[in-house]
């Protein structure tokens, strides 16, 4: 699921710090804005926009962090609105709903752990590519 590969060049200390921060940003936002899934996406997006003119290594990791947030947004938003409809409309709690919430928690947790791990590794200048998101980032993010 997580693949450590060699980046096209050796990133410098400053680059590694910035790249690592993109993951930390999404983690902090995730904790702060837990009930509203859009918040961590916005935080990561702001960080991405701020660094889109950065070096390739920084841009690459900002993109991977952003993309991973984007897919969690779909899962979390659906769960969020489903919960609201149970609380405020005639919708009732079903096994299907509880199963969805558990699945969402499992995926969020996996993403959370992967983000922490990647933040630590990138801080050391190690290039970490995630399953699917790594490839997607390679397609989107190009070295100039």
């Amino acid at each position: 699921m997580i693949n450590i590969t060699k980046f096209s060049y050796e990133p410098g200390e400053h680059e590694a710090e910035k790249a690592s921060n993109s993951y930390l940003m999404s983690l902090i936002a995730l904790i702060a804005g837990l009930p509203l899934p859009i918040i961590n996406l916005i935080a990561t997006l702001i960080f991405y926009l701020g660094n889109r003119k950065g070096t390739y290594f920084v841009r690459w990791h900002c993109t991977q962090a952003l993309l991973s947030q984007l897919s969690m947004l779909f899962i979390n938003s659906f769960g969020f609105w489903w919960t609201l409809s149970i609380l405020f409309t005639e919708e009732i709690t079903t096994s299907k709903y509880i199963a969805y919430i558990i699945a969402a928690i499992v995926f969020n947790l996996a993403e959370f752990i992967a983000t922490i791990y990647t933040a630590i590794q990138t801080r050391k200048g190690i290039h970490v590519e995630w399953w699917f998101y790594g490839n997607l980032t390679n397609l989107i993010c190009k070295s100039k």
Partner: protein
Amino acid sequence: MVVLWQSDKFNLQIKMMGKTIIQGLITIALFFLTWFALTQIDWITVFRVQKATEKTEEKLGNLFWNIFQKTEKENKSQFVVSSVDSIVTKICNANNIDRKFIKVHILDKEEVNAFALPNGHLVVYSGLIKNSDNPEEFSGVICHEIAHIQLNHVMKKLVKEIGLSVLISMTTSKGGSETIREAAKMLSSSAFDRNLEKEADIKAVDYLVKAKINPEPFANFLFKLSAGDNEATKYLTWISTHPDSRERAEYIIEYSKDKKTKFEAVMTIDTWDKLKEKL
């Protein structure tokens, strides 16, 4: 040479795109598979959601009933209670409804009204009995309210109108008494939405037919009151809160058309007259 190099790069790009799409699809499938696998477990039982819901409903039912008990006068006459009970028991037995769950309360009030509260509390105003021409008409309204209880319309309406979070807070000591009073008023004086009302009407006809009670008087009751030729028009809470009485009467007649069965009297004319006298 340059052209070849570019096409190689293009092929690589296509290959990578294909790989990414497959990985993306696998990720999505993995999520749905996890969800599907988890739905195989009956979480409602595991987390005792049902039990918690029942407890909330029980508490709410008692809270609301206490409000009516405090503000209105309950008719506890042995004859009145047992007469109404006999009708409810007959309907419940014929339809496999847990009789103990339905708690009938008769209040001395001129309004033509009957309504259901959470946890099977069924409140009947004496005005309804007085303005019913025969026990079949009255049974129709009772069946309609029992249908609301059995189809869980009461809790659905409460959750829709005031929200689950407020309902749960009501059952704790912090629940505001004003909110409880407002909710109780809403339950007694406003109808359910159109679809739920129709569902309850149709279910009521089924209950009546199974209990061998003619559903026609129930439709007549609606016709009569919608026409406004009854002396109780000014107290028509049940009708004014249940819109389109004429339309309801029509579809009740339409639905009961093919349900020809041998009907029996709910109670003797003497008992019915005596019941009205006692009120």
